[in-house]
């Protein structure tokens, strides 16, 4: 029962605390969750301040943009216990995340599992340093829930594929440097087969994007069009026509991905307290009852993400819950 008291962890915490004290700029300690303050990185990234840039550089140097990735690929090689401490200490000083990206959340784990050694060394460090910003090309207008029904095609042209089709809901495609996408490379195979997981430079001839306007007025989403885009054969993750395995792996392991983001609901301010600050009448029964339920549910959701991350670390899949 008495866990987490090992000397090594205590030492790690102390060192980390010192490091944060020395390297996290004051401006980066506002715990900002506002979208405008997120650092996404990438070729064309405009840092909003010197502090944002300094903070990214400092973290990247220590591997703290991707704390659990191996050091060889730009991470800090932290254990789950160390990672937990890392997030606790970051939260303690209300530090902003130095970098967020689909490269960290999604492509990275896929490469770590399916990538060749060469691919890992080529693609992962620029993600960790915030130099290359990735976007994800899964959904298509005709294939939403029915993802495997996707129609974007890659024609085999010997040393490259020629990719033609359309993706939708590609978040920030208009600002990304590269895209990882599911592409049908074998149109004869059953629909879950014949799909490959390809990497494409967004500056490749034939790729264009168009933002999608949402009902809120703004949107991170784009449509992305592929018109005979040439993709070299070494830009595939996993085996040809086995891209579905990669996509499934990412979906199945999303819990550790989510856990790794450290953004657990309920760790922030209580909903009811925020509402009260906005002048809401928290004595009013209907509002209060709804706020209570949301508070209970969101705290429990946060604990569940934590539990899933612990289960993933312990090598347990999501199974029938105990007791059952």
């Amino acid at each position, binding site marked *: *029962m008495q*866990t987490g*008291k090992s000397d090594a962890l205590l030492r790690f915490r102390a060192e980390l605390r010192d490091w944060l004290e020395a390297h996290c700029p004051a401006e980066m300690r506002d715990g900002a969750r506002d979208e405008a303050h997120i650092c996404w990185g990438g070729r064309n990234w405009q840092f909003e301040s010197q502090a944002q840039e300094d903070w990214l550089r400092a973290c990247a140097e220590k591997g703290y943009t991707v704390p659990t990735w191996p050091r060889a690929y730009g991470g800090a090689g932290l254990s789950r216990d160390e990672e937990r401490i890392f997030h606790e200490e970051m939260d303690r000083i209300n530090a902003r995340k130095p970098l967020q990206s689909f490269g960290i959340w999604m492509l990275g784990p896929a490469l770590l599992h399916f990538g060749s050694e060469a691919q890992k060394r080529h693609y992962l460090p620029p993600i960790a340093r915030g130099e290359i910003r990735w976007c994800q090309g899964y959904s298509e207008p005709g294939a939403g829930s029915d993802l495997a029904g996707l129609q974007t095609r890659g024609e085999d042209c010997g040393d490259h594929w020629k990719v033609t089709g359309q993706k939708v809901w590609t978040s920030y495609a208009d600002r990304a440097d590269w895209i990882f996408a599911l592409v049908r490379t074998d149109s004869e195979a059953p629909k879950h087969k014949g799909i490959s997981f390809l990497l494409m430079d967004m500056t490749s001839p034939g790729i264009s994007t168009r933002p999608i306007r949402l009902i809120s007025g703004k949107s991170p989403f784009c449509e992305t069009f592929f018109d005979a885009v040439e993709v070299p054969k070494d830009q595939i993750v996993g085996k040809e026509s086995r891209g579905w395995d990669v996509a499934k792996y990412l979906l199945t392991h999303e819990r550790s991905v989510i856990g790794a983001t450290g953004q657990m609901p309920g760790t922030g301010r209580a909903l009811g307290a925020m509402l009260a600050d906005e002048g809401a009448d928290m004595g009013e029964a209907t509002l209060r009852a709804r706020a209570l339920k949301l508070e209970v549910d969101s705290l*429990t959701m946060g604990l*569940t993400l934590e539990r899933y991350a612990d289960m993933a670390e312990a090598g347990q899949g999501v199974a029938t*819950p*105990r*007791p059952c």
Partner: protein
Amino acid sequence: MSAMAKLVPTEDETLLGDSARGFLDSAAPVSHLRGMRDAGRSHDPDLWAKMVEMGWAGVLVPEAQGGADMGHAAAGALAGEMGRTLVASPFLSAAVIAATALRQVADGRAGEALRRIAEGGVTYALAVDEGPKFAPEATAMQARPEGNGFRLTGEKRFVVDGGFADRLLGPAPSGEGLTLFDLSAERAGITRDPRPMIDSRDAARLRFEDVEATGADVLGAVDEAVTVLAPALRAGQAALGDETAGLAAGAMAMTVGYLKERRQFGMPIGNFQALQFRAAHLWSETELTASAVLHAGRMLDSDPDNAALAVSLAKARATETAQLAVQEGVQMHGGIGMTDDFDMGFYMKRARVAAEWLGDYAYHAEEVARLRGF
């Protein structure tokens, strides 16, 4: 909210849970409760003796007093398994609530009482409520100082296991605050009126008429019941959360089994997407609840002074999930879900009683709100 201890069962807890499941599936399946109900009994001393023999009564008792001292998460694992088959036993009253209370008091008498709990020599009941809703502070009981002791007069209601417990643990106002008394249930002046609840367990009404209590009957310090009682209540609430989560999981398992077996329109009804979605929703709720109850146990073990939020979260969440599980259980079983022949009714009744005991959903949701600053 976070504890360094992992939100996965330890190896010991897994072993404990597995052995409990194996034992209860044969010694106390739901049919055992049915048998007790049909016989008009709310306590089975033989079953409790076996549970004692397996060491469960001492799960929270220090090793020095003959217990296993495995902690609240382990106690919760046991309570969860008991919930799964609706075991009726004094486990919560004696091995969790009373044991936790007694552990707050570092004297020889409390140590001796802990030893007797662990060895099955004594059972306890917690006598706090005087009305239908959990309100430990709202007591009209009187503890009138007399000589070195007190005279107790008043009434306690909904005393779970109170009809058969050997000893009673209950607070009464004594001047500056509440004092917690630990009395033999046979003490002169105490009248017990056992009342079977709808879940076939006992929730006695106790009358205290000028009951003599000496300083030796006081647990902890005079006027300071809350020091002892508060941790005991939290422990009980957490374990009851586990039991409730367990009964939700048990009801769900029964329902999912039925979905696979019952055929209508030429196929198992589990083939119908509308029912699949309802089952998936229920499963998700049980997953969320499993996190909350395990976390409550971890917090009680690692940081008990700050465990109130975790405990109320667990009790609130488990209560809601169990209600959903038994409602969906009855609904998805169709008509037979409403028949006494089928066990779902037992789950529904236990869920209803467990929802009220030691604070209902609204009570604990308000606790969460208070602790979260609104």
